[in-house]
């Protein structure tokens, strides 16, 4: 087993990986940028090494810096988390060259599956159902128009190198096609340095169902059941749950087998996620493979009892899976709500800044994977995810009730969060009935505003706060956080 792992990430996911390393008795090295000098992952790792300025390209995305830091720190392996370099075949390749273990699939697999059109070909050849559409990227509008006609409108323009909803456009009629292709290609070029696009059939009222897979280096592959991630905003997941309300045991077996087939067809090793779209007729189609730990992996951990990060590390160390498909059993129901720093009343606009006060919910069946604390300044440079609130309960209704209660106890002062929005989604009839399609938020919660029936209580609290406290707003703004840095402080002391 590894002696030391470098965690090439930040925030809640870096902490998640650090925790498992510490429990396994493996030393862990955090890396940090200027913006993250006081970040929790910097504080909680066994060792923290400075990478560079806050700009991602000069710190968390700088492959050579990460490699050099790992070698200097005598790390055996690198865990990339999600985002940043986690799906970068270049980092995996450099690790392979430098004798470091990349905790993820081989670089070739990342590269193949990172190109959507190559991935579609691998899956088709492996017998995995794919969405009707083109086999390779195309730039000629004439050919794209022909293909769109053949596929049938509505079609989806997608970036071959895509991800995170960028370079994606729905086209309902032929006369919209040219513009959509141009915009998508431009966006893709800007986001991924690759403007290649292709067309797929657009599936209306579909659900996003994904299967967690684990594959060891000896060829053993299992899936850890499904996750339904249909509740999305800007093509990013907001609420995930498992099991899905619509996946029957038979469908679970079939989709699970397809997920395992997908892993086998691509030569997959380590943890990954096979994403499918499920249409209203119960037909499912391969969407993509995420070749990394998924943000929503905790809900699978909650129902299966399997620590996915620990499995990733064991697999990367060459150990065989210690269990078979028959050993994987789901128990109860788990839901995750992503707590972003954003304003749901204002187009989910980012809301970075200082967390004046934080109080996390707790109790039976509640897990909060959290990367912030009272006094932490949420940087403007990185992903807006603050924490992931996860609940487990014996059944879906109890899980929903538990999540609503937990959200109502979550206190984050200083920046905007979607806590109240999430409470309303969970309480809504379509959610409670399991009518969770990918257009859920636009259909049911477009232009959402927070209810005002308890605003009087906020007025009372304002007044009591005025009456009960000394009238020095400054004292409140600084809160419990000492603004001192070692330099300032030592400076003063030397005078």
């Amino acid at each position, binding site marked *: 087993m590894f002696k030391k792992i470098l965690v090439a990430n930040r925030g809640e996911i870096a902490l998640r990986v650090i925790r498992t390393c510490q429990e396994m008795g493996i030393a862990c090295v955090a890396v940090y940028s200027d913006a993250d000098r006081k970040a929790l992952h910097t504080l909680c790792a066994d060792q923290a090494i400075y990478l560079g300025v806050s700009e991602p390209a000069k710190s968390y995305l700088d492959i050579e810096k990460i490699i050099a830091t790992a070698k200097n720190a005598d790390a055996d392996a690198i865990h990339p988390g999600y985002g940043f370099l986690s799906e970068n075949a270049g980092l995996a390749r450099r690790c392979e060259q430098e004798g470091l273990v990349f905790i993820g699939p081989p670089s070739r697999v990342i590269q193949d599956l990172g190109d959507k059109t190559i991935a579609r070909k691998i899956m088709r050849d492996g017998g995995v159902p794919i969405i009707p559409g083109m086999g390779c990227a195309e730039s000629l509008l004439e050919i794209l128009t022909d293909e769109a006609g053949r596929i049938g409108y509505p079609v989806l323009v997608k970036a071959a190198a895509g991800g995170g909803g960028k370079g994606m456009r729905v086209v309902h009629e032929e006369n919209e096609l040219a513009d959509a292709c141009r915009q998508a290609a431009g966006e893709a070029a800007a986001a991924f340095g690759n403007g290649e696009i292709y067309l797929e059939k657009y599936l209306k009222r579909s659900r996003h169902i994904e299967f967690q897979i684990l594959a060891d280096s000896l060829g053993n592959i299992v899936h850890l059941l499904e996750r339904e991630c249909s509740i999305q905003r800007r093509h990013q997941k907001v609420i995930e749950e498992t099991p899905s309300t619509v996946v029957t045991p038979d469908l679970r077996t079939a989709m699970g087998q397809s997920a395992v087939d997908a892993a086998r067809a691509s030569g997959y090793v380590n943890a990954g996620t096979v994403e499918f779209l499920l249409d209203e007729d119960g037909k499912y189609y391969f969407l993509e493979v995420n070749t990394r730990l998924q943000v929503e992996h905790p809900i699978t951990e909650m129902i299966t009892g399997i620590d996915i990060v620990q499995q990733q590390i064991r697999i990367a160390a060459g150990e065989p899976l210690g269990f078979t498909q028959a050993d994987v059993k789901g128990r109860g129901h788990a839901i995750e709500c992503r707590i972003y720093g954003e304003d749901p009343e204002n187009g989910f606009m*980012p809301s*970075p800044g200082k967390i004046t*006060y934080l109080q996390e919910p707790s109790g039976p069946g509640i897990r909060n994977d959290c990367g912030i604390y009272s006094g932490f300044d949420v940087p403007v440079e990185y992903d807006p995810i603050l924490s992931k609130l996860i609940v487990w309960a014996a059944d879906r209704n109890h899980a929903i009730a538990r999540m609503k209660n937990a959200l109502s106890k979550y206190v984050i*002062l200083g920046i905007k*969060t979607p*806590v109240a929005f999430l409470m309303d989604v969970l309480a809504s009839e379509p959610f409670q009935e399991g009518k969770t399609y990918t257009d859920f938020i636009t259909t049911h919660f477009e232009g959402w505003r927070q209810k*005002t029936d308890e605003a009087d*209580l906020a007025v009372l609290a304002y007044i009591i706060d005025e009456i009960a406290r000394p009238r020095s707003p400054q004292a409140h703004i600084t809160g419990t956080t000492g603004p001192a840095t070692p330099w300032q402080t030592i400076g003063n002391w030397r005078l």
Partner: protein
Amino acid sequence: MDYRLRIDNTDFPVEVEVNEDLQLNVMIGEKKYIVDYTVISDFCIHMAVDNGIRSGNINAFTAYGAYGKNVVINGRSYMVQDIDSLAQAVRKGRQPNLPNEITPPMPAVVVSIPVSIGDLVNKGQAVIVVSAMKMETTLCAPFDGTVVRINAGINDKVVPGQILVEIEKDG
């Protein structure tokens, strides 16, 4: 004691007095509340609120922020402003984010500035792109005009209220 408070766009006229049991009697508009409270910490106040129907125990969390007092109750977050001090702030010219000015909607980093000083721009034309938490926002010209000043550079950190690009109206 009287207050005039605002949450979102709703105004709340408030009258407060202490009753013989040392509780607060609060009138918010026409509604009457009797409140017992305990200060729990710098950020938490416990209230027992009676408004005829007993509504019981409330934990309220409060902190001052840039635009007012942030109050969180039962998972909902409110920005409560004192109208009187707001008015004062406006008189002092502190009101941020006036509609006709090019200022970021959130703390952000400047990604690109597709215009130069002296450029003629049309209403709706992109003049500066900022990014926060991996989401890019394009700020556009609010009217036809000429770019007369650019107050930010690429990679600068900018905040709401800061005027990034100044445009002189045509005519």
